[in-house]
């Protein structure tokens, strides 16, 4: 694992006015005329312009999720829970241009023989990227099917060589008030406490399905979906799939994840999708797939029982929510 030191003459990409930014400014001026029409139109157009910069990724297709009917890119990128921006699900798509996903480093530390810092470039270049189609089920009762691009988490963890003391993995989202408006100092009531923290048990983290995603629908992740790198744990409720990760720490004790900290009667550490255990306020038996007026049955472990069921054989899933 190498850490590339940047030479003095290095100008970071965002200091250079590149063509995309130039065009963006031009577009912005053009949009000025549209101001006479409607400000919401502008917000949407600008958000669209921001997205132009997302580059295509090279990846291998896989058979994961073959036969599942995909949701559209539009649906997956305009219905987001990202409280660092807003509690509204449509706002993140309009606000997320403040997040700067490049350059970006992820630190791997704690109970490992090989602590390391990996940059986005490392992930793009030194791991084989693959596409996996997964079901995604939110604790709120909606769901979607998304083609993620990324790498198996275990490939990354193996390079760091977890020690025998590593029993859990703790993930942390970026804290930066300049990039995340809800983190502004002096905000009286932030939506949630920061940083956002999530965790997995070691066997869960090493499971074949556990995925670090850097893209979707063939391209880099849009900011509102957790750019540049996020976790995807398809058999757990969506809040486990933490976004915009800056650190992965291997630890001995079960980390306290954000939603459990906020309300441990309703949200637990495991958060396995389970149609037989309701949320105290609403049923989890069925789900609303985005774009549909009809509900469909929710599957045990979100349909991944074969791959993950064995990890919870002896656990009371009513207790360990």
């Amino acid at each position: 694992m190498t850490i590339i030191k940047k030479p003095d003459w290095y100008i970071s990409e965002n200091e250079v006015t590149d063509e995309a930014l130039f065009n963006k400014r031009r577009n912005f001026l053009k949009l000025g005329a549209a101001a006479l029409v409607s400000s919401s139109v502008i917000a949407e157009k600008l958000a669209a312009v921001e997205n132009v910069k997302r580059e295509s990724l090279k990846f291998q297709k896989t058979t994961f999720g073959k036969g599942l009917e995909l949701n559209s890119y539009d649906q997956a990128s305009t219905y987001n829970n990202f409280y660092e921006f807003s509690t509204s699900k449509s706002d993140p798509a309009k606000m997320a241009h403040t997040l700067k996903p490049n350059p970006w480093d992820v630190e791997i530390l704690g109970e490992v023989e090989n602590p390391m810092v990996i940059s986005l470039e490392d992930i793009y270049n030194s791991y084989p990227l693959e596409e996996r189609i997964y079901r995604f089920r939110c604790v709120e009762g909606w769901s979607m099917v998304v083609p993620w691009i990324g790498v198996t988490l275990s490939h990354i963890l193996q390079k760091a060589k977890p020690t025998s003391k590593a029993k859990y993995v703790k993930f942390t989202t970026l804290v930066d008030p300049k990039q995340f408006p809800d983190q502004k100092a002096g905000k009286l009531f932030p939506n949630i406490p920061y940083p956002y923290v999530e965790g997995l048990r070691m066997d869960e983290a090493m499971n074949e399905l556990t995925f670090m995603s850097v893209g979707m629908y063939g391209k880099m992740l849009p900011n509102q979906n957790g750019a540049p790198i996020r976790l995807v744990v398809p058999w757990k409720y969506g809040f486990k799939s933490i976004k915009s990760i800056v650190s992965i720490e291997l630890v001995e004790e079960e980390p306290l994840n954000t939603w459990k900290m906020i309300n441990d009667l309703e949200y637990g550490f495991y958060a396995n999708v389970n149609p037989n255990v309701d949320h105290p306020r609403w049923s989890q038996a069925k789900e609303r797939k985005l774009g549909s007026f009809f509900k469909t049955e929710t599957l045990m472990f979100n349909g991944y029982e074969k791959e993950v069921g064995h990890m919870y054989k002896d656990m009371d899933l009513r207790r360990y929510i």
Partner: protein
Amino acid sequence: MKRSLLFFVLLLPLLYLLISVQSANDPIKYIFTCTGISSLIILILSLSLTPLKKIINLIKYRRMMGLFSFFYALLHFLNFYILDAQFDVTFVLKETLDKPFIYLGMIAFSILLFMAITSTRKLFAKFNKWHKLVYIVLILVVIHEAMAQKVLGNLEFMFIFMTIVLLGYRAFLFRVKWLKKKK
């Protein structure tokens, strides 16, 4: 004339819902939100007419607003029964008995239904005392709305504030009456 204008304005949320729901990502949730929030806001506005009476007397519109609040609550309930529960009566009963979030809504809806039925001139004369129950509806629905959220935000604090103001005004009237009686 003014009456039909108000009627039209109170229909706008429905028109908006019908147009926008087609592009909603999560239509069932979207219908809950639009109908629920419309019902609650119209309810609060209708209750504000009483304290506003001193400044501008619009009491004659109170009944229409109350009925519209009920109308949106009815659409909200139908969304639950038809799209969410898919006509599954067992599911509806189980959820209602099981989940405070749902039974608070059901109690509130039942009271609104009762008020809608007894809002005719004849029945109102007999039942008007019972229409004070609307303040219970307000409290229940504000709790219900807050329970629909994962974290409380500005909208919830605004609804709670309005509830305190409206109930506070009622308590004030009650005390004035009581003091007069004592004399």
